[in-house]
C-alpha cells in the first residue's frame, strides 16, 4: 500500500466515523403522556401531570411572566414529601395555590380530588368577582321606576336553566323617540329556544329583535330595535359572567350594518411553550335581516362582566356608533370549551383532565388523584394584537359601581347612559 492510499483510506474512515458520531448529536424527542387521560396514584404524580399539562397546553405562555420551571423545582420536593409524610387539607390546597399563583389566565380553575379524603377541591387564583348579585336585582327595580318607561318585559329565571333578561323602552332625545334597552344575565340564549323553555322566557328577546323565522338568531325583524321610533340602544351586560362565544356573533351582528373585524385568536400547536397557530381574524357577519341603520349604542358593563360579556363590551365599544359606560371589566377574555372531547382531543390545548370530576364532582376513578384543569383554549387579542387578559376592557366613560347609591335607589351608570344618549355628552 502506498503512503497516499493509506492516507486516503484513513481519511475516509475518520470522516465516516466523525459523521456517525455527530449524527447522534440530535436530542431525543419529547415523550410525554397526555394530561387529558393520565391516571395518578400519588401526590407527586398528580403534581407532575398538571405541571406537564400546563407546560405544553397553556395558551398564555407568550405573555405570562411566571417562571414555570422554577415552580417545578420548588414544588416537586414538597409533593414528594406529602407522599412520604402525609398532608392535611389546608396545606394541600395552599400548596396548590402556590403552584398556580400568578398565572395570567383569569378563567383558570383547578379541580383536584384527594382519594384519601374523597373530596373535590376547587382552586381559583384569579381575583374573586365582587359580590353584587342582590344589587343587580336592585338595578332592575330602579329601571322599572324610570320616568316614561314603557313596554317593560322581564323574564327572571328561577330554575337555573335559562337566561334571565329584561327589555323596555325609555324616552329618547326627542319627543316620541325611544331608547331600546336589553339586559341579559348570561350568554346561553340558545337555551331559551329549547322546546322545554317557557314561552315567556323568550319574550324580552322577541320584543327587542322580533319574532324572526324560528329564533332571535335570524336578526332584527319586527322587534323594537328596528323601528323608526327607536333612535338608540342600551345593552346592559353588568353582572354577566359570559357563556357561549358562538352567541356573540348573532347577538351583536344583528345590530351592525357590515361585517366587522374585531380581533384575532390562536391556540397552541405543538408541545413547546411557544408553539402557536397563526392568528385567525375574528369577524362578525350580519344576519340577513340586520339593523339597516346605525343607531347609537351604549353598552353597560362592570367588574362582574366576564368572558363573552367582556368581548361583547369590547366589540360594542369599538364600533363607530358604540360607547362603553361603566367600569373596567374583569379581564378573563380567553375563549374556552371545557368539553375536552371536542377541544383538547383535537387541538391539544386548553382544559384537560377528568371531565367527570368537573361535571359531576366525582372522578372516573375515585381511587386516583384525579384532576381537571379549567383554562383558556383560545387566546383572544384586539385588532392591535393587544391581550385584554388580566386587564379587562376600560370604559369610554367611567362610572364606578356605587353600592350606597343603589341602596338609595339611584343607578348612576344607567343614568349616565341615558344622559349620554339624550344629550350626546
Amino acid at each position: 500500500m502506498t503512503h497516499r492510499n493509506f492516507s486516503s483510506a484513513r481519511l475516509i474512515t475518520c470522516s465516516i466515523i466523525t459523521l456517525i458520531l455527530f449524527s447522534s448529536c440530535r436530542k431525543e424527542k419529547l415523550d410525554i403522556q397526555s394530561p387529558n387521560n393520565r391516571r395518578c396514584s400519588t401526590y407527586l404524580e398528580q403534581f407532575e401531570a398538571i405541571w406537564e399539562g400546563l407546560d405544553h397546553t397553556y395558551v398564555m405562555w407568550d405573555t405570562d411572566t411566571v417562571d414555570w420551571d422554577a415552580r417545578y423545582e420548588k414544588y416537586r420536593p414538597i409533593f414528594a414529601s406529602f407522599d412520604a409524610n402525609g398532608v392535611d387539607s389546608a396545606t394541600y390546597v395552599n400548596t396548590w395555590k402556590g403552584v398556580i399563583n400568578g398565572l395570567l389566565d383569569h378563567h383558570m380553575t383547578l379541580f383536584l380530588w384527594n382519594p384519601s379524603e374523597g373530596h373535590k377541591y376547587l382552586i381559583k387564583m384569579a381575583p374573586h368577582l365582587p359580590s353584587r348579585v342582590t344589587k343587580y336585582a336592585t338595578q332592575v327595580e330602579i329601571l322599572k321606576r324610570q320616568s316614561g318607561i314603557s313596554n317593560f318585559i322581564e323574564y327572571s329565571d328561577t330554575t337555573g336553566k335559562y337566561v334571565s333578561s329584561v327589555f323596555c323602552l325609555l324616552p329618547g332625545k326627542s319627543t316620541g323617540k325611544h331608547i331600546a334597552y336589553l339586559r341579559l344575565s348570561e350568554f346561553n340564549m340558545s337555551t331559551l329556544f329549547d322546546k322545554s323553555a317557557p314561552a315567556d322566557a323568550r319574550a324580552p328577546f322577541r320584543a327587542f329583535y322580533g319574532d324572526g323565522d324560528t329564533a332571535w338568531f335570524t336578526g332584527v325583524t319586527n322587534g323594537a330595535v328596528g323601528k323608526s321610533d327607536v333612535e338608540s340602544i342600551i345593552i346592559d351586560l353588568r353582572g354577566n359572567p359570559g357563556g357561549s362565544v358562538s352567541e356573540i356573533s348573532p347577538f351583536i351582528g344583528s345590530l351592525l350594518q357590515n361585517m366587522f373585524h374585531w380581533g384575532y385568536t390562536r391556540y397552541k400547536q405543538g408541545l413547546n411553550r411557544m408553539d402557536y397557530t397563526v392568528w385567525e381574524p375574528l369577524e362578525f357577519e350580519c344576519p340577513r335581516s340586520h339593523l339597516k341603520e346605525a343607531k347609537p349604542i351604549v353598552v353597560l358593563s362592570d367588574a362582574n362582566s366576564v368572558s363573552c360579556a367582556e368581548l361583547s363590551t369590547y366589540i360594542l365599544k369599538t364600533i363607530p356608533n358604540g360607547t362603553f359606560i361603566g367600569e373596567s371589566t374583569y379581564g378573563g377574555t380567553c375563549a374556552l370549551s371545557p368539553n375536552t372531547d371536542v377541544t383538547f382531543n383535537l387541538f391539544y390545548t386548553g382544559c384537560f383532565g377528568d371531565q367527570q370530576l368537573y361535571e359531576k364532582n366525582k372522578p372516573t376513578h375515585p381511587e386516583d388523584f384525579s384532576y381537571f384543569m379549567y383554562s383558556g383554549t383560545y387566546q383572544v387579542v384586539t385588532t392591535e394584537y393587544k391581550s385584554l387578559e388580566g386587564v379587562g376592557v376600560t370604559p369610554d366613560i367611567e362610572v364606578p359601581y356605587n353600592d350606597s347609591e343603589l341602596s338609595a335607589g339611584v343607578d348612576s351608570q344607567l343614568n349616565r347612559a341615558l344622559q349620554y344618549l339624550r344629550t350626546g355628552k
Partner: protein
Amino acid sequence: MKKNFLLLLTFLALGFGLTAQTSTPQMQQTAGEESDVFSPVGRWTLGVDAGLVFNTLDAGTAYMKNYTYMPRLSFSYGFNLRYQPYKWLALRTGLYYIPKDYVLMQVDSITINDKIEVFARGEMAQNGYLNVPFMADLSIGKKVRYHLFLGGYMGYWLNGSRSGGALPLMSVRDSYEYSEPYTFDKSRDNRFDAGLTYGLGISIPCSKRVGIDVNMHWYYGLTDLQKRLSRQHNPQYNTSFLLLVGATYTL
C-alpha cells in the same frame, strides 16, 4: 452557542486541516495524472447547480395522535467552489439556497350528537435557508469520476411563510385559509443552522475545462429549530435530500 462553535471548528478541521498535510500539489502529480483532462490537481473549479430538495421535519408528536409532519418537495439552487490538492481529493464549499419545507397535517374525527364529524387541518411551513457546506470530495474514475462527499454545513434561516386552511374557530367564514410571512421571534427561533452533509455524485467531462455534475446530498441538521425555553423541550430538526444537476468550469 458553544456547541455550534465546536461544530464549526470540526468542519474547518475536516476541511482545511487536510490541506495542511498536503505539500505543493503540483509536485505530487505524476506523469499519468497529468494526462487526465478532468483531474485538475492544484486548480480551482467553479460550479453552479440546481435541483430538487426533499425536506423532512424530525419532531416528536408524543400523544398528539392526529399530528403528522409530512415531507415536502421544493427547488434549490446555488454555486460551489472546490480546490483539488490531490487527484482523489478535493475540498468543496459553496452557497446554496435550500427551502426546508414541511407540512403539518391534523386529521381526526369526533362524534357530536351521534354524528361523526371529520376534522382536518393542514399547514405548509416554508422555510428558506442559506447553507454553506464544507465537504471533502473523494473521487475515483478515469474520465467519468464518481464522488463521495463527507463534511458539514452551516447556515442561516433566511425567511419563512405559513399557509394553510382550517375550520374557523370563532369566525363566520365556512373555512379559514391563510398565507402569510413567518414572523421570527428572537426568544423562540434558532436561526443558526448547522449539521452534517454527505452525498454521492458523478462528474462527466464535456471539454478540458467544462463538465457536468449530478449530485445527491443529504443535509442532516444538528441544530434545533427552536431555543430551549423550558425544562421539557421538544426538539425539531430538518433533514434534507437534494438532487442537483450543474455545470463546472475549471480555472
